[in-house]
């Protein structure tokens, strides 16, 4: 009973203090998370935990992945050039102001589809867009503390966002881990690697098509989306005001 009361008291104290308690908790969590990640990287680099057979299999899989990623990069680059040209025509800003921030926590630990970045204070505000280096929007800043900020992934479980695929409107529903699902009209020609953009983020890309599934009995097709790079492979993100 005492422990329960204490926990509720801490929650109330955090609400009353405007988030001071969670700010301190996140600061400690980011430091400890960094130690742990550095330790695991050190152990992994020795190859202690890997057998020769598993290393060979991993090597083969990575070569295939490199080839696939090269193809997707070429496709994304072509679309980016077209998009940049359209922005100029519409007199949109070509350069997006913002700052670069490191990801300082695990991106898979949160049950709410959030992660921490190492910037805060007056540099950013809640509602700012968080993007990859390639310009894909991965989330929005939801809570800012003194030196850290919490980012809510747009593909978080339970989240949904209006988007556009090949000019057609779709409603994208987040599945977590940088993955999402949408239903598109069955007669829309959708291919793996097609880029999905979001009007609410200034027509910026939010993901690419990873797989398409349809049945003859259905009036729609299931489109499975994901980020071009896994969030866990990203070290830095770009934070920009959402009205750019």
């Amino acid at each position, binding site marked *: 009973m005492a*422990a*329960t009361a*204490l*926990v*509720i008291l*801490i*929650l*109330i104290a*955090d*609400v009353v203090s405007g*988030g001071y*308690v*969670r700010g301190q*908790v*996140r600061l400690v*969590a980011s430091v*400890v*998370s960094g130690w*742990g*990640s550095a330790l695991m990287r050190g152990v992994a680099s020795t190859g202690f935990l890997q057998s020769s057979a598993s290393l060979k299999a991993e090597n083969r899989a990575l070569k295939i992945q490199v080839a696939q990623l090269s193809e997707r990069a070429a496709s994304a680059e072509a679309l980016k050039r077209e998009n940049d040209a359209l922005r100029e025509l519409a007199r949109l800003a070509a350069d997006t102001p913002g700052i670069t921030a490191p990801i300082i*926590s*695990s991106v*898979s*630990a*949160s*049950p*709410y589809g*959030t992660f921490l970045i190492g910037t805060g204070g007056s540099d950013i505000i809640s509602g700012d867009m968080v993007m990859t280096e390639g310009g894909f929007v991965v989330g929005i800043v*939801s*809570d800012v503390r003194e030196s850290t900020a*919490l980012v*809510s992934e747009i593909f978080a479980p339970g989240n949904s966002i209006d988007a556009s695929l090949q000019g057609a409107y779709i409603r994208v529903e987040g599945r977590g881990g940088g993955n999402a699902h949408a239903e598109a009209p069955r007669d829309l020609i959708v291919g793996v690697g097609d880029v999905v953009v979001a009007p609410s983020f200034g027509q910026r890309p939010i993901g690419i098509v990873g797989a398409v599934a349809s049945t003859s009995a259905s009036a729609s097709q299931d489109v499975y989306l994901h980020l071009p790079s896994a969030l866990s492979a990203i070290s830095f993100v770009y934070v920009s005001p959402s009205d750019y």
Partner: protein
Amino acid sequence: MYHLPITSIRVFVALAGLFGVLWGPWWLTAAAIVLLSARFRAWEALLLGLLTDLTWLPAVSLFQPVPFFTLGAIAVIWAFEPIRSKFLLRT
């Protein structure tokens, strides 16, 4: 056969839950909360729930968004109370 002291198991499960809070997966923390609650009046289960919400929830309040892990830990601890009393030895 070597039997692990119950306290060691409790500490191990709590640490596994803490690992889940910081590095994931989140269901590891949830499982630790349930296991601890089933066997003990574990204050650390409440702490794990609170840590999860303070670290990862966009804004902490009692109502919006709902701190599921904290409230869930409280619910699980108290829901298991009759079972702990009737079938298990308390420690």
